[in-house]
């Protein structure tokens, strides 16, 4: 019944099993599954299996594919294709920044975490620049990154800061891995992971130690007359800007200052200051480069543990558990994780804090 192929996989195994392995197995398993899918499909001449195989055949690991579009100040996405992978530099600064920034983000994820793009299967990185007119925003729309030019007074173009690009691309990673709901505490965690890896992309590109880094998000995108260094500070949440026109950075750095609001999807860009501060504290406590240990703990937590509705206190417990797995239960690293969360008023192992602060469950 079962015909052995040279690679030891029976082609009689239903293709969907191979597909499953091709999707979820380790590298060696994946390679074998691809071969089996390919061979069995050829032998049976099933076109749809070949198609499935073609779809699953990921870009070779470590090979990035970037595509930059120009939305030409309109509403239509993605817009006009202006630069593909390997194409020469454009005369348009925003195009080149989106190209270089997504490349640096890809390299960070691949070299540090061995992750092959947003979906870990070599997904092409699509970006559109010049979206709408004077648009003061950048976002991830579920499929691609989108950048506005800013109005020139409050904001400059959003591609100007590498951590913004790393932040947006990380929303894609979170979508594929944890699927964090974009509301209230899970939404603030979604924002938090984007700020963490956005900052780490920049630190990695600059080859900085944790204590050398500025820990700022959106540094350099404010207009020339705005009184502020950036949009957020992971080191000192609530201190990034204080401007007569814009007001003051509203981020809390402690659970006791948790903001309950219906604006901003339940304050996702506000309360992210709390876990941001915890991550900063951990990175400083562990020393060295932040992506080596703190970043790895957070990455594995995002990929292996976090669920769509994870709350702050649950996320804290998950990071502690991951630190225990990576470095040993009771290790200095695990103790540092618990201490970092304690700084922001979250005790690992209880959920009472989140509930007391009004976190919805």
């Amino acid at each position: 019944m079962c015909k052995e192929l040279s690679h030891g996989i029976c082609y009689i195994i239903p293709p969907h099993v191979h597909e499953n392995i091709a999707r979820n197995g380790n590298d060696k398993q994946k390679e074998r599954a691809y071969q089996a899918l390919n061979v069995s499909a050829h032998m049976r001449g099933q076109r749809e299996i070949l198609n499935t195989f073609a779809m699953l055949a990921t870009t070779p690991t470590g090979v990035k594919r970037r595509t930059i579009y120009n939305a030409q100040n309109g509403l239509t996405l993605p817009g006009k294709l202006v630069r593909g992978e390997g194409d020469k530099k454009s005369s348009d600064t925003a195009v080149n920044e989106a190209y270089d920034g997504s490349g640096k983000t890809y390299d960070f994820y691949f070299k540090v975490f061995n992750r092959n793009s947003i979906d870990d299967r070599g997904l092409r990185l699509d970006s559109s620049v010049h979206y709408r007119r004077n648009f003061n925003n950048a976002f991830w729309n579920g499929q691609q990154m989108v950048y506005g030019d800013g109005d020139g007074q409050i904001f400059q173009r959003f591609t100007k800061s590498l951590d913004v690009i790393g932040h947006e691309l990380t929303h894609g990673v979170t979508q594929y891995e944890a699927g964090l709901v974009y509301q209230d505490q899970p939404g603030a965690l979604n924002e938090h992971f984007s700020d963490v890896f956005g900052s780490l992309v920049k630190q990695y590109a600059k080859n900085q130690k944790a204590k050398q880094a500025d820990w700022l998000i959106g540094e350099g995108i404010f207009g020339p007359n705005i009184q502020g260094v950036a949009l957020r500070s992971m080191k000192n949440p609530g201190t990034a800007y204080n401007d007569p026109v814009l007001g003051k950075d509203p981020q809390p750095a402690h659970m006791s200052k948790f903001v309950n609001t219906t604006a901003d999807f339940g304050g996702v860009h506000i309360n992210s200051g709390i876990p941001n501060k915890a991550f900063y504290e951990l990175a400083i406590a562990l020393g060295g480069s932040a992506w080596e240990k703190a970043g790895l703990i957070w990455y594995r937590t995002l990929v292996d543990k976090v669920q769509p509705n994870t709350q702050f206190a649950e996320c804290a417990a998950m990071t502690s558990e991951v630190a225990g797995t990576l470095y040993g239960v009771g290790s200095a690293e695990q103790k540092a994780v618990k201490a970092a969360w304690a700084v922001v008023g979250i005790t690992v192992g209880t959920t009472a804090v989140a509930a007391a602060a009004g976190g919805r469950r």
Partner: protein
Amino acid sequence: MRISFERTGGFANIPLRAEIDSAQLPHERAQELEKLIERARPFDQQTQSQGAPPVADDFQYDVTINDAGQTETIGTTDAAASDDLKLLFDFLGEEALQKLKQR
């Protein structure tokens, strides 16, 4: 016509809030606003896609329009809004930003 406009969220999350009175606008701007509202039909539920997947760093809008004694309120996001509605929001956002800068 009086419009209360609030935009929050977005990557920057700089809240933009303003009261806009069409009677106080220059004639051309007031006409443009009227045209935009006519096209966007902000209170017609058809102009918003229900259950649109949430978009990270999306803008959230809370807008109240008071016209001839009638008041209607709309709460939506860029991802859920039609193109015409986005153009209306961009117009109102521009007005709100001007007011903010004059403060």
